[in-house]
C-alpha cells in the first residue's frame, strides 16, 4: 500500500510539473516574447513549438488530475476533500479540476483554431487566440492558490 501510494503521488507530481511548467512557460515566456519576434520567424512558434507544447500541456493536465484523484481515493479522503470536509486539500483539488477543465474544454479547442490545427474561418482566429490567452492567464492566477493549498497539507499555515 505504501509503495502504491508513493508511485501514484510521484506520478501526480511529475505530471503536475509537466502541466504547470508548460503553463508558466506559455505565460511568463512565450506570450510576452511574441511581439518581439520578427513576423517571418513567428511560424516557428505557432507551427512547431506551440503545438508540441500543447500536447504535453493538455496530457500533463489530464494525468495530474487522474493521479491526484487516484491518490485521494486510495488514501481514503477523496469524498471528504471534494465535499470540503478537508478544505486544505479540497480547495486545491477543486482548483486543479477547474483548471484542467479550462485546458481541455476551452484552451485546447480555442488554440486548435487560433494555430490553424483545424480548419476554421480565418476571422475567428484572433478571437480564439484571445480566449485561449485569457483562460491560460486564469489558470496561471489559479495555479498560485492551488499550489499553496497542495503544500499546506504538509505544512499548515494557520
Amino acid at each position, binding site marked *: 500500500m505504501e509503495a502504491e501510494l508513493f508511485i501514484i503521488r510521484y506520478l501526480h507530481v511529475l505530471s503536475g510539473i509537466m502541466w504547470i511548467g508548460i503553463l508558466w512557460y506559455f*505565460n*511568463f515566456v512565450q*506570450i*510576452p516574447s511574441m511581439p518581439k519576434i520578427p513576423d517571418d520567424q513567428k511560424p516557428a512558434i505557432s507551427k512547431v513549438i506551440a503545438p508540441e507544447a500543447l500536447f504535453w500541456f493538455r496530457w500533463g493536465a489530464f494525468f495530474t488530475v487522474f493521479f491526484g484523484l487516484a491518490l485521494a481515493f486510495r488514501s481514503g479522503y477523496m469524498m471528504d476533500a471534494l465535499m*470540503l*470536509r478537508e*478544505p*486544505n486539500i479540497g*480547495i486545491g483539488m477543486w482548483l486543479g479540476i477547474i483548471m484542467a477543465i479550462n485546458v481541455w474544454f476551452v484552451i485546447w479547442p480555442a488554440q486548435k483554431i487560433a494555430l490553424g490545427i483545424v480548419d476554421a474561418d480565418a476571422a475567428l482566429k484572433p478571437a480564439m487566440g484571445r480566449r485561449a490567452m*485569457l483562460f491560460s*492567464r*486564469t489558470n*496561471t*492566477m*489559479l*495555479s*498560485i*492558490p492551488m499550489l*499553496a*493549498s497542495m503544500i*499546506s497539507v504538509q505544512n499548515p*499555515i*494557520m
Partner: protein
Amino acid sequence: MAKILEDLKLTVIAGVVLTVIMIFATNAIYDSQMSAPEKAATDMMNNM
C-alpha cells in the same frame, strides 16, 4: 477581470490575493466544522 488577466504582473498579484483569501477561507471552514468542545480546546491551545 480581462484587464487584470491581460497584464501578467496583475495576474500574479491577483493569484497572491486569492491565496491569502483561500488561507482564511480554509481556516473558517475548519472552524465551522469543529464541535464546541473541540473549538474550546483549540482556542485554549492558541492562547497558551
